[in-house]
């Protein structure tokens, strides 16, 4: 069931990254049942993991969200007050103007809840970034009158919208994301379609993000996309472009769920069994820099939530230097198995055949 409060607000032990990292290094890994991620990738000569060409800058505009999804790796919710300030946004804009990355990816929380969100999108869209993504949870569009025109705003700035929808039926979606989320999400998708998103000739992209609502991995992304396309078209006349299938990583609230439901061990075995060396080659931390609400730099959004700053002289947006960052070693732990299982997983979905 969807939760009412974040781990942070409940002062749960798992709200502290150090406790999560400790948990992920003990038990089945320490006792030798499963190999440490470091040893696994060393078998194919991938340790230390090094970045390739930087392609994506992912900015977390804050952990505040109107939803409290039971699987959220950010531990986001209405009770989270961490919000990117306009000063940090200005530092980010300087970086965006000079970066070699072709994609800018705004996430949260609900990034739209940042009071300077619209200003930032307007400024950032002038920088000539090829692909400008906003990760929208959809329900925010209907949460308050002031957000109702977001579809038009996104359209105006040619924003590429990536939206979470765990299933094309009500029950599973509401279980993971909260009661009523499915109906609101459907309405929001229709509003996006109405202004031209995922409609031929508009160039306005609307992608859906699928992540399993439980202790299992996603399978074939293309098949899931087809199922979603048929069901959403037939039942709600909704169009979208692509479906990204994302594996839930065993951190934060999803880790809490795995432990509470006694699925943790089986889940970790599933991830390790599905380990795919080809996915390691394209794992997203090799082409992404993740920037937190307070300007710190991370290899990915998951490392951000685990408090694992980049292993580099440059650790903050105020000192940003792409060349120096590209020489770093990527920080890994057992949660990384989530990105290398099966066809692999990234914020852009599968990464390997």
């Amino acid at each position, binding site marked *: 069931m969807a939760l009412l409060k974040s781990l942070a607000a409940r002062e749960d032990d798992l709200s502290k990254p150090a406790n999560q990292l400790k948990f992920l290094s003990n038990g089945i890994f320490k006792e030798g049942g499963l190999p440490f991620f470091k040893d696994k990738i060393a078998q194919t000569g991938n340790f230390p993991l090094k970045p390739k060409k930087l392609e994506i800058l992912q900015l977390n505009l804050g952990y505040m969200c109107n939803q409290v999804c039971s699987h959220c790796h950010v531990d986001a919710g209405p009770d989270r007050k961490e919000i990117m300030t306009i000063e940090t946004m200005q530092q980010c804009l300087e970086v965006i103007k000079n970066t070699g990355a072709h994609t800018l990816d705004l996430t949260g929380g609900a990034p739209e809840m940042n009071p300077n969100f619209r200003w930032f999108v307007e400024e950032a869209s002038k920088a000539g970034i090829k692909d400008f993504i906003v990760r929208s949870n959809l329900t925010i569009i209907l949460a308050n009158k002031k957000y109702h025109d977001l579809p038009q705003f996104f359209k105006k700035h040619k924003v590429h919208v990536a939206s979470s929808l765990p299933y094309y039926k009500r029950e599973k979606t509401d279980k993971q994301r909260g009661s009523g989320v499915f109906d609101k999400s459907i309405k929001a998708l229709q509003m996006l379609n109405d202004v031209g998103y995922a409609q031929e000739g508009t160039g306005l992209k609307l992608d859906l993000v699928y992540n*399993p609502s439980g202790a299992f991995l996603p*399978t074939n992304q293309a*098949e899931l996309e087809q199922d979603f396309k048929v069901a959403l078209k037939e039942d709600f006349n909704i169009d979208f472009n692509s479906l990204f299938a994302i594996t839930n990583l065993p951190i934060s609230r999803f880790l809490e769920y795995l432990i509470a439901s006694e699925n943790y*061990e089986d889940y970790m075995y599933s991830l390790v069994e599905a380990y795919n060396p080809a996915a390691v080659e394209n794992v997203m931390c090799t082409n992404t820099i993740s920037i937190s609400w307070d300007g710190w730099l991370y290899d990915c959004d998951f490392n951000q939530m685990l408090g694992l700053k980049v292993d580099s002289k440059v650790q903050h947006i105020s000192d940003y230097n792409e060349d120096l960052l590209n020489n770093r070693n990527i920080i890994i732990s057992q949660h990384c198995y989530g990105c290398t299982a099966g066809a692999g997983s990234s914020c852009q979905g599968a990464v390997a055949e």
Partner: protein
Amino acid sequence: MSKPYYDPADLRKFGNITEWSEELGTKFFDYYGKVFEEGALSAREKSLIALAVSHVVQCPYCIDAYTKDGLQRGIAKEEMMEAVHVGAAIKSGATLVHGVQMMNKYEKLSM
């Protein structure tokens, strides 16, 4: 507490059967893998057949495995339960069709 005959964790060790008979074990797993590949039937259809058969042969490991497989493929619980009913219908049909044999024998023995 007594140890149950079936331990869910044993499913992870299935591959170990190859250790005591490498050739046969390997042939079996190669065959198994091939069977479940996309073919004239889709992998999704095969998953539902496997789920139904798992119930009919009452294999707890197989039920665990193909329930999870179905979830991963986005198969709805209504589809899964209908598949189980198909298996159950065939099994009960197989029992009941023997009723004809009973009837035949009854008639033959009766004056």
